[in-house]
């Protein structure tokens, strides 16, 4: 059955190398690989091909020695819904290494995809060649988890919380215990010799991989050069006769040029000034979704620095820079998300729920500072933190804000930095000798 009908085809160069998508980088490859699916009759017969893992796809190319006439095809990593851990059983020790993953297919069973009514089928990768299947499996996980293809997609998706799994699935030796025939090689000198050979081949393949990464790096560098050249030309052309609307749309103002310069580090096309870079839009939405749960745990307000750490830790790879984070947060104004970025007078920046009300916080603080013991001794940031259920640093920001509104005043001493209910407005300057009952004054303050 022709693969072109079911799996997306892969364009090959004249020398048989696959044509990569923009931003696609090769990660690993295995030779003599079968791809099969028992559950789906429509799945093509892919036997003994070269399996190339990229950041976006699993590409299967028939090897020249192969007798099948199936064309080169690819499985988009985005259609994979799950990767199974390889089973280690007695039987698997004697067979070719294999691993399985779950693929989403359309409802009519005619193609790969995750539209409505789609279902999952299990696909098995059988490694008949001598390659390091464990390393490949590890890279497979990483690429699938990294979800590089999402940066390219316009449709917003919110799956940043990928599962955290340790790198390589199994713990067996690299090089393996199997021959291509599947027999266990163990005995004698020939066994040792074969093991040596395996090691060399594994090293050789690692070198291959390394060079492929280098190739990817080179192609990125080429992109940079193209960009720089484009920019140079545009800057030179400056005020040329082509000042129509199209030229403006294409290039925008000098401000956009600057933004473009900034975004050279990010693989993203710059569109209109107001919309911001696509990359940041995506990131912004992902961040809004991600930050919901940490916000709940932290009582409704988190320091931006903490968000930066937690978000990057969850991403694992593809870390974002502080500038990216800041820009993503500032884009929230344009979307309708339930979170917001807030900058305190002290310069501290936090993320808080839009529903988080300052007035309510102030009311709680007031109640806290007018208790009999706090009237005498005031409160510290830690005291406030316990009452409000937020971090002490966040509590301090709220206390400072309440102070600036005249609700509280400060007391700095060897005892520390404390806040009291502000009684200054209640003190009568003309009645210096009048009896002032602090308690009644504070009751008036409510």
């Amino acid at each position, binding site marked *: 059955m022709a693969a072109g009908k079911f799996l997306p085809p892969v364009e090959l160069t004249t020398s048989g190398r696959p044509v990569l998508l923009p931003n696609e980088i090769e990660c690993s490859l295995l030779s003599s690989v079968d791809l099969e699916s028992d559950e789906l009759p429509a799945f093509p017969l892919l036997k003994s091909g070269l399996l190339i893992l990229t950041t976006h796809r699993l590409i299967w190319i028939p090897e020249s020695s192969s007798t099948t006439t199936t064309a080169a095809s690819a499985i988009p990593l985005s259609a994979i819904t799950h990767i199974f851990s390889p089973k280690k059983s007695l039987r698997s020790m004697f067979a070719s290494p294999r691993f399985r993953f779950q693929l989403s297919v359309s409802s009519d069973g005619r193609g790969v995809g995750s539209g409505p009514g789609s279902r999952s089928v299990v696909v098995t990768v059988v490694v008949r060649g001598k390659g390091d299947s464990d390393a490949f499996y590890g890279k497979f996980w990483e690429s699938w988890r990294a979800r590089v293809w999402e940066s390219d997609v316009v449709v917003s998706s919110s799956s940043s919380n990928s599962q955290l799994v340790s790198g390589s699935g199994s713990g067996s030796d690299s090089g393996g215990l199997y021959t291509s025939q599947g027999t266990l090689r163990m005995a004698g000198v020939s066994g040792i010799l074969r093991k040596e050979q395996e090691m060399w081949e594994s090293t050789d393949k690692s070198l291959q991989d390394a060079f492929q990464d280098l190739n990817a790096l080179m192609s990125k560098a080429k992109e940079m050069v193209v960009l720089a050249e484009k920019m140079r030309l545009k800057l030179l052309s400056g005020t040329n006769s082509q000042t129509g609307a199209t030229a403006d749309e294409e290039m925008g103002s000098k401000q956009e040029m600057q933004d473009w310069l900034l975004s050279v580090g990010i693989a993203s096309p710059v569109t209109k000034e107001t919309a911001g870079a696509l990359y940041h839009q995506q990131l912004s939405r992902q961040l809004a979704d991600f930050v919901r749960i940490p916000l709940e745990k932290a009582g409704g307000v988190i320091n931006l620095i903490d968000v930066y750490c937690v978000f990057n830790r969850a991403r694992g790879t593809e870390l974002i820079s502080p500038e990216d984070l800041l820009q993503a947060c500032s884009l929230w104004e344009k979307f309708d998300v339930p979170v917001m970025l807030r900058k305190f007078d002290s310069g501290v920046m936090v993320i808080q729920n839009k529903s988080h009300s300052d007035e309510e916080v102030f009311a709680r603080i007031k109640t806290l500072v007018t208790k009999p013991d706090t009237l005498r001794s005031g409160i510290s940031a830690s005291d406030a933190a316990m009452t409000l259920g937020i971090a002490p640093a966040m509590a301090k920001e709220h206390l400072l804000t309440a102070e600036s509104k005249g609700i509280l005043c400060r*007391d700095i001493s060897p005892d520390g930095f404390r806040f009291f209910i502000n009684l200054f*407005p209640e003190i009568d*300057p003309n009645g210096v000798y009048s009896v002032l009952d602090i308690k009644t004054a504070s009751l008036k303050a409510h």
Partner: protein
Amino acid sequence: MQKLGDFKLPHFFNYPPYFTLQPVRDTREKQVQLWKELILDYCRTQKIFVIGLEEEFPLFSNPVIERTLSHEAREAFLSALVSEGRAEWLDKGHRKCLILWHRIQEWADIILNFVKDNGLEDSVMTVEEIRSGTESRGTELSGIDRTILMRALKLLEQKGKLAIFKGTSADDEGVKFSI
């Protein structure tokens, strides 16, 4: 009520934030106002004319609540008095401050009244006699700070109410009234 010597301290003297310089503008204004009045009242009743910022000034500490005004706070409150014309810095480093709980003009009037009350319109007195002589005992002039006294006398001299002349020794200046 808490006392400092025989001076009755106001109740808010026990409010700890009173001893921390407040950053918020409205709160600060009120705080400064309260301290200005307290300083003037205290100095007037205790006849204190000079406050040294680096010295221990009883008004600036409250051992009951264990709070003391910082140097910055002291300077802020005294500077506010200076701006109002109720005090003067005696040195550029703002270490000593002359407190004018009576303005110089008021002292000048007090001297005039003193002269009239004691029938000294045409007489001669030494400056020292004015501040420590028998006539001034029990009056506000008793123990007045010499600098302030000289300033008030000079003001009266400008108005032609008296003449200041040097005596036989350096600190034996005299005054001839001609009121």
